[in-house]
């Protein structure tokens, strides 16, 4: 059953009571949620590009002309959505007692073997929001968390047109190759 847009807004902004949120969890899913969700998010952002898919609390895939890019709520643009947006973020590594202790401070030891695991923080270069965190071994490739198939979703599942000209394959390694050159 559809919910009022104001209810969905309260839900996603964390203003619904626990019991009201649980009722929504228990009930059959409202079919128009995606549209209401995008409307609410579009009203929130201060830029004009059409949101195609939210992919994080402040991170969106948006339509820019006939292409889709990743954009932060603050306006910072990360480029083609087919390239891992993390490559255009700022990174901070926590891999020693001091820096890990800032997060897990009170708990001693913070790890049984410092150095085997690093916490990677990815910040938006525009607003400094921490957009994602990874916990991986040093030297592990940065993970490309989610590459949606926008065409299949919009045209196949939602039955709508998607005026994009890019095919949907992963372009991350093309950027990496550019980095290698200089």
């Amino acid at each position, binding site marked *: 059953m559809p919910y009022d847009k104001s209810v969905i807004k309260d*839900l996603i902004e964390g203003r619904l009571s626990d019991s009201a949120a649980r009722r929504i969890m228990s009930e059959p899913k409202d079919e128009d949620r995606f549209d209401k969700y995008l409307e609410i998010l579009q009203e929130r952002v201060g830029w004009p590009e059409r949101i195609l898919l939210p992919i994080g609390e402040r*991170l969106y895939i948006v339509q820019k002309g006939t292409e889709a890019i990743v954009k932060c709520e603050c306006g910072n643009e990360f480029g083609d959505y087919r390239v891992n947006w993390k490559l255009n973020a700022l990174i901070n590594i926590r891999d020693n007692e001091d820096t890990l202790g800032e997060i897990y401070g009170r708990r001693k030891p913070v790890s049984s073997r410092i150095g085997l695991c690093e916490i990677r923080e*990815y910040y938006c*270069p525009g607003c400094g929001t921490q957009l994602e965190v990874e916990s991986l071994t040093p030297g592990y490739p940065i993970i490309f968390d989610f590459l949606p198939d926008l065409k*299949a*979703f919009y045209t196949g599942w939602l039955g709508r047109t998607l005026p994009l000209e890019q095919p949907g394959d992963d372009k991350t390694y093309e950027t990496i190759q550019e*980095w290698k050159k200089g």
Partner: protein
Amino acid sequence: MSPEAGKTAKAKQRETLKGKLEHAQELFKKTGHCYGVKKLSLKEKDPIKYELFHSRVLSTVLAARDMAKMVSSSVMAREEGELCFAVFTPEGDSIAFSTGLMIHIGLMGGFIRWMIEHDYEEDPGFNEGDHFANNDAMISAIHTPDVYFVTPVYVGDDLVAWVGGVTHVLEVGGLTPGSASSGIITERCQEGLHVTGEHVARNDRLKRDYEMRIQLNTRYAPFWLLDDRARIAGNVYIRGQVKKIIEEFGMDYFREASKEFVEESRRHHTLRIKEKMIPGRYRSATFMDVFLKGKLGVLPTAQKDNIIHIPVEMKIDSSGRLALDLEGASPEGRHNWNSRACSLFGGLSITLAQMLHFDGKANDGSLKDIDLHAPLGTVGNAKDFWTADDWSWGIIHMTYNQVIKYLGRAYFSRGYVEEVFAGGNHMVTLEMGGKNQHGQLFGGCVADMVGSGSGARGVMDGITTAWQIWNPEGDQGNAEMWELVFPFLYLGRRIGKDACGAGRYRSGGTYEMVWMVNDSDFCYFSQIGTHSAFFPNISLFGGYPPPVGFLHLAKDTDMKERIDNKLPLPYTENELALLSGTVKTGLDRAYVSEPLKTYDLVATTYCTGGGLGDPLDRDPQMVSRDLTEGFISSQSAEQVYGVKAFFDESDKEWKVDAEGTKSCRTNKKSERLARGIPVKEWWKTQRERVQSKRLPELVLETYKECMALSPHFTSEFRKFWALDETWTM
């Protein structure tokens, strides 16, 4: 001519169970529909009758579970509800299963199919009143303590259904006492008593030779044997009820509706995906430490430190078909973190039943349209006969916590934010044995720390405690019952401070548990390890993983004097520092303790789920509430959440300094922008480091092992670091 004589060989063969199974498999292959059912005719014709029929079967298995709890002596069954019952088609597809230990439903069906495929119908034969047992993952199971009993249901000469039950047995006669494995088990022969596709009961009575084997091969047989009786009791009850249901609805209806349930569940799975998810590619990886070098009790063949690597890629294609791939995972090894393929598949069912399908009819049908690939010879698909697979749960947690994250990403993108979870958690039990308070040799386990906090949710914090997705261990039952059965007393059970996965929404709490050995002069403990060096990679959207956890021991202390003189006692891991004597803290959990006695202490912490969202976005009022309730310290409030708070003595609560918080958060964002470096710059320096292999030895070894098995992982690694095709680790 008799009807028999007129039948072709093919027709006769099809009447056998093996023939029926093969026919069902052929139909599915040919038509893409379970049992070839293209139309849910019975459902369409009379949906009320259809749902009523299902409810009757479902309520039967639920009632059986509750009844069987009372037959078993085991606190694991009675207090914790760690059991499950189901009804299956003759071909081994579940059509209804109870709550409880639900991971086993597909696996029990797998055991039924294995028996059929291995001609058990001929020898030993299937008769009413026979019960067949299995706990061996080489056939279809999770691990030794989870024992299945399945029994056929006959109407006349026709085997019309199977009924099955599983319980988690508390003591299985393994290398270390207890049920689930300890971290020092590294070979199959150490896992305890394997019951490998055996005929164990006739006319609903356990066979004497089977009982003797249990009596003489486990430390405390009543746990096992009374669990056996609980399973028989449950199976007999369900069998009787199924016959009544058949009488009421008719044999034809029972047969056809059962097939429709399975097909309906298959369709439902794809409908849910298209309703709630987004097609595309999802990726993550996570790691686990299994440090065995120098550990007491570990065989020479296993004296090695290991890092387990589980990468998981999930794809959903345009048709809604879901595929999971563990390409690049660590090779199977001489440790306990290995899974057979069947066990990994079992993990898929427990995850999706609760995170995606949400339907009372979720059964084997819901898994038919999923592709799961774990390369042979890796920790997700062990092939070596001698490999210990008893802690397949470890691989299941690592794999499906990533899947829970993917479901969360999809739900978030789709707008169903209330369904998002920032990862599950890992289970840790405390295994123990020695001499109990009655002077008997015993083995057993406690699992209350399994019921810990959940990952953060999309619209609220994680569930604080008593949560568990993998089994019913969120509800431990009465602590007094556990104290009655085992020689210990609970001293403390607290939510740990600064022990959540931080985020805009934080995870639930981490447990800290302290027990004191009581009335025993010989008791020793072990644990399966979990996360002492690796923060599980389970957070979302800028939240943090939870901290790691440890085991702690205290022996020959002044506990008795403290008790006698009413001095402060330790209720948390940090408070062990109060004691004089031998206190060992920060033990990673692949550990077996030296023997302990009355007044000695064991303490452990447990890992919870991940945080969601940037901690600097957390509502400051929620941070002050966390301070008041003891979830975080004031240092963490400021350092992690950027919240300045003060303790109001008159109201006895923490309150937010709004201006201070605003300023603190602004500064922290500036600090991030100052210390963060562009990823391109980071990549260049790290690339040199990787090229010259200036990485910790154990990490290099892990990469080398994974690359040796996976050209794909090698290729992706090289591509990311722009290394030559000839570059090797």
